[in-house]
């Protein structure tokens, strides 16, 4: 294996570089996936039938908490990658652990939000609007849940094997995924929640 020491560890071999490029292409597909979900949501947002509208069920506090938790977790995992580049394993693992805890906090608020919606009579079957709302939020939430377990295994692997070209590459790719979840959340926060709450 040819290791290029002029590059950060996660880019240091040909395989590593290609893994990262390949993951960016996957993220491109994810952008299109969420694009179709937003398409359906925007098309069906006014089709509320007998069910509640967005402005009736959305609440600002949990949404702000979710936004703040995910935004902070995205910043913290960035610090984790920075610590990894410095070769500081302990700091890296601490930042990764904080990231996952913030992710869990996000999921806690989101699950609680879904339970509240359910009790207010908004379920997956209530109307076209609630169907697309839960599908879009749920797809993002499922990504965060998957990311939590992925991150957990990354932490275990780095703790066991240390920072090597291989584990650094995996950690970096995981960080791309986690930042991407925050990017998607920015659009959900703005164009589903804020837009929904300011709709007249």
């Amino acid at each position, binding site marked *: 294996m040819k290791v290029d020491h002029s590059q950060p560890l996660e880019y240091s071999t040909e395989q590593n570089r290609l893994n990262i490029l390949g993951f960016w292409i996957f993220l491109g597909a994810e952008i299109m996936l969420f*694009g179709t979900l937003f398409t359906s949501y925007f098309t069906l947002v006014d089709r509320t039938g007998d069910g509640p509208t967005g402005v009736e069920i959305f609440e600002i506090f949990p949404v702000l908490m979710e936004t703040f938790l995910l935004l902070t977790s995205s*910043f913290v995992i960035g610090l984790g990658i920075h610590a990894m580049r410095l070769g500081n394993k302990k700091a890296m693992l601490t930042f990764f652990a904080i990231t996952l805890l913030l992710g869990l906090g996000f999921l806690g608020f989101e699950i609680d939000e879904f339970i509240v919606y359910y009790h207010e009579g908004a379920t997956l079957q209530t109307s076209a609007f609630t169907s697309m709302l839960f599908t879009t939020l749920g797809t993002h939430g499922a990504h965060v849940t998957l990311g939590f377990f992925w991150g957990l295994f990354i932490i275990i692997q780095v703790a066991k094997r240390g920072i090597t070209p291989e584990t650094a590459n995996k950690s970096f790719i995981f960080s791309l995924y986690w930042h991407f979840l925050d990017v998607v959340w920015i659009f959900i926060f703005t164009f589903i929640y804020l837009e929904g709450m300011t709709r007249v």
Partner: protein
Amino acid sequence: MRELFPAKQVWGFILSLVLTAAALLVYFFNMSRTIGMTIFIVTAFIQASVQLVVFMHARETDDSKSIFANIYYAILIALVTIFGTLLCMLWGWKY
């Protein structure tokens, strides 16, 4: 300790918080739909770019061009899907 908090990323985080707060202005203050949507679009896309460039290091590698070509293409497809659908389904475009 200080070396663990690079200025670029700290500023990126602060900028993200400020942009979130800017989008919230639309919620707290009464303003027209056009101005509201403009603020939403501007803040959301700047924030997404901050994530890509500051946190995801999209510019730092030799593959940068391929990465951006791929991302722009994906965004184009997503926007065409969204606005194309809105055009026929909601805005009443007929041929």
